[in-house]
């Protein structure tokens, strides 16, 4: 087909699909479609953005994707970017039906980007920002040498996941005051068992005595008291601690407090951090976002007049996308099934649901739009993965026993909770800066907030030198390995560990 003719046909389809999507109340930005050859899509896919800076790790990802494509192992049909207008790249060589499906899919992604709560702070101008940042980094390479910039990028990239996407909720100013108060109250009071120094539980104690009666939450207030026990004296010394509260955003902390950083290095940290903050919501909503797009490409395609051949081809492509996998949860599949299930349950509630939750029925569509607006993967699974779904789709948890990967849980609640645990913090360890002046030697003390899962020690030992590279002084990391508290230290030369 002549390229111009192909574009004409595409334009017609887009118009048609856009109309249907609007009738379904999808709400998206203006769309910018671009047809690209495979290696360009793979390059965008490995960088996450067409305009991002250069780094060998992207080259590695690109090589992997391209090889898989060349050997016919996998294929991406599209790539879509959270921006306004929304950029979508279609693979050259897609058939018209494939493109129709992709366009419908992409519109739903764009609706998700525009309306899901977790995206409302992402910059919609990231295409331009990343391009400008890439120019700056190229400039640094000219000025300071490629190897120097590259090795600093290596270090920062290895820590890029250690940011805090929710930091805007309490950026720290408020905490500062609270914390100082705590210091004062400490000096004024003696801490003895039931009287507590910490500002927050101080208030709680009041609340309790105000009402004068016990509440079902007493055990919780008491927990706080116990933790405060005997720590008062230390608290006085801790007043000047940096950071004042444990800081989850390692990059932000090091950018602000790293003593030996040069301006260009701070800029590099801030670039990586901003880009990661932009990508974070996509990591947080993978199941929801892909499920939503799959749900809508199905609904929209059903409204299209497809010939028999086209219908068969669509069915093939679609079933390729929702193929289940024994080692992973396929987000396209699970997400789709969950939206369908929610819609069904809110359309036809059981008598119990009608009575208990006051669901009148017929609210399926409204409900899934509400879900797409307010949830992320973690709450989506926690709130809407039902026993019926787990059992019908044969979901399970598995783990390693000896050399084998064995199915460990089939009980639906355990499966649901296991999936939720793995979604916490996008499946990444929660690490905080405890002290930026450890031992008064300017060393950095990190702590892994252990919530049941041990860290990969091999990786841990090799990541600490990257922290050192950025911080410039010894790095300590506290974690728990096999139930024992361990402190890893990298002093610029070698890693050591000791039990604490």
């Amino acid at each position, binding site marked *: 087909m002549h390229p111009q003719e192909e574009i004409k046909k595409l334009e017609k389809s887009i118009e048609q699909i856009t109309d249907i999507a609007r009738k379904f109340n999808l709400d998206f930005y203006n769309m910018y479609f671009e047809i690209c050859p495979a290696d360009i899509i793979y390059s965008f896919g490995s960088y996450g953005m067409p305009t991002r800076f250069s780094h060998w790790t992207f080259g590695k990802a690109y090589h992997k994707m391209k090889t898989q494509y060349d050997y016919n192992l996998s294929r991406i049909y599209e790539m879509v970017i959270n921006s306004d207008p929304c950029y979508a790249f279609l693979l050259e060589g897609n058939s018209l039906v494939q493109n129709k499906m992709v366009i419908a899919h992409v519109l739903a992604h764009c609706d998700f980007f525009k309306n899901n709560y977790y995206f409302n702070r992402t910059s919609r101008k990231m295409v331009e920002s990343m391009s400008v940042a890439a120019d700056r980094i190229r400039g640094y390479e000219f000025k300071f040498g490629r190897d120097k910039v590259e090795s600093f990028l290596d270090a920062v990239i290895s820590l890029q996941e250690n940011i805090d996407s929710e930091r805007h909720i309490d950026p720290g100013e408020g905490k500062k005051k609270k914390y100082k108060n705590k210091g004062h109250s400490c000096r004024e009071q003696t801490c003895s068992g039931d009287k507590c120094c910490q500002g927050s539980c101080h208030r709680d104690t009041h609340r309790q005595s105000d009402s004068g009666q016990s509440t079902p939450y007493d055990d919780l207030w008491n927990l706080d008291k116990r933790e405060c026990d005997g720590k008062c004296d230390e608290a006085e010394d801790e007043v000047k601690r940096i950071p004042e509260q444990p800081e989850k955003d390692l990059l932000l902390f090091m950018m602000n407090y790293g003593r030996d950083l040069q301006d260009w290095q701070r800029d590099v940290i801030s670039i990586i951090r901003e880009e990661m903050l932009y990508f974070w919501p996509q990591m947080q909503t993978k199941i929801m976002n892909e499920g939503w797009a799959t749900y809508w490409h199905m609904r929209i395609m059903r409204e299209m007049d497809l010939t028999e051949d086209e219908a068969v081809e669509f069915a093939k492509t679609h079933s390729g996308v929702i193929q289940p996998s024994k080692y992973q949860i396929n987000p396209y599949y699970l997400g789709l099934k969950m939206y369908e299930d929610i819609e069904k349950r809110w359309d036809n509630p059981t008598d119990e649901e009608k009575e208990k939750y006051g669901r009148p029925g017929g609210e399926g569509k409204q409900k899934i739009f509400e879900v797409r607006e307010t949830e992320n993967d973690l709450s989506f699974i926690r709130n809407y993965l039902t026993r019926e779904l787990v059992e019908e789709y044969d979901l399970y*948890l598995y783990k390693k026993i000896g050399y084998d990967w064995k199915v*460990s849980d089939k009980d639906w609640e355990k499966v649901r909770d296991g999936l939720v645990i793995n979604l916490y913090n996008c499946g990444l360890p929660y690490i905080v800066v405890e002290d930026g002046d450890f031992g008064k030697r300017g060393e950095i003390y990190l702590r892994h907030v252990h919530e049941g899962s041990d860290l990969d020690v091999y990786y841990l030992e090799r990541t600490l030198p990257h922290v050192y590279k950025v911080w410039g002084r010894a790095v300590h990391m506290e974690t728990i390995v096999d139930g024992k508290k361990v402190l890893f230290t990298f002093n610029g030369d070698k890693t050591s560990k000791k039990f604490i």
Partner: protein
Amino acid sequence: MSGEYTVSREDWSLHRKGEIDRERHREKVREAIKKNLADVVSEESIILSDGRKVVKVPIRSLEEYHFRFDSGKRKHGGQGQGDTKEGDVLGSDQRQAGPGKGKGAGEEPGVDYYEAEITIDELAQLIFEDLGLPNLQPKKKHELASEAFEFKDIRKKGISSNIDRKRTILEALKRNARQGRPDSKKITKEDLRFKTWDITYKYESNAVVLAMMDTSGSMGPYEKYIARSFFFWMVRFLRTKYQNVQIVFLAHHVEARETTEEEFFTKGASGGTRCSSVYKLALEIIESRYSPDDYNIYAFHFSDGDNLTSDNEKCVSYVKELLQLCNLVGYGEIEGPYYHTSTLRTALKKIVDLKFTSVGIKGKSDVYPALKTFFNPHPENKAQ
């Protein structure tokens, strides 16, 4: 509803960022391989590659380290076909299924170390960069030829990558001058000049290498594997760098015999050990076929050192004889991972001769240093 979407197709042929970063990644892979040659050299996947051209070598140093969970200690979610039960085995981790088993990245969680694909030739180039035959001396008969390409001919036809730009422009200028124009306008087809090459031979001295391997019962699969990986690279190295080097393969237990190359690398044997047998055979072969006047002679022997005690003295004297005839005699003793009782190396330690080198090999990563020690083109400045 116009104006709300745009479709376009642009020319992306100049977008090369992915390719450029891919090239940078490749560069880093090569650097990493070079740094880890000692580990790479004795990778099973290479030694047992059955003539495959491309091999995969694991490269840990190019992993992108970050703080992550130990996937072996976590539970993961998956989806079955409908009848999965607790306790079902989904798969097993091949990497740990036993020592010496082939490595393979699986799709299960946590297995994501990077495997670089590299051709054996490319790898050989990296390995052989610093190797050479030591003490190579001029001999009467010059047979050891290495190919050399020389660009010395200029022709009017050729392949476009070989265009001689300078001569082409000169031709264009001349033609224009002939036609009365002082400058050159367009380069025409007849102006084109191509360089072309001749193959010449650079003659070097003859060399013969005697590869001697202990195949007795005490040489377990591990010891044989080590010896064979040394000889594998040795043979490749000699054939890559030198045209006509001759290699003689000798295997021994109590008795020694000459074998074909294939037998040498594949066949096992058993029985006791008498190392002197192979030295004796080597001396006989040199005497009948390779005169030291015509040949540079190298002898390498690999054994676990578990020799008959009564035989050791004989070995020492044969090795001394060999040293009279050879440019270099190398002895590699493989110290098994479990126990090691050397008798031979202790005995050979008595020999003090610059042309005698012995190395102990404790593990797979010692194969490369052994190669470097034996094929050090300048043994006078021993850097290792």
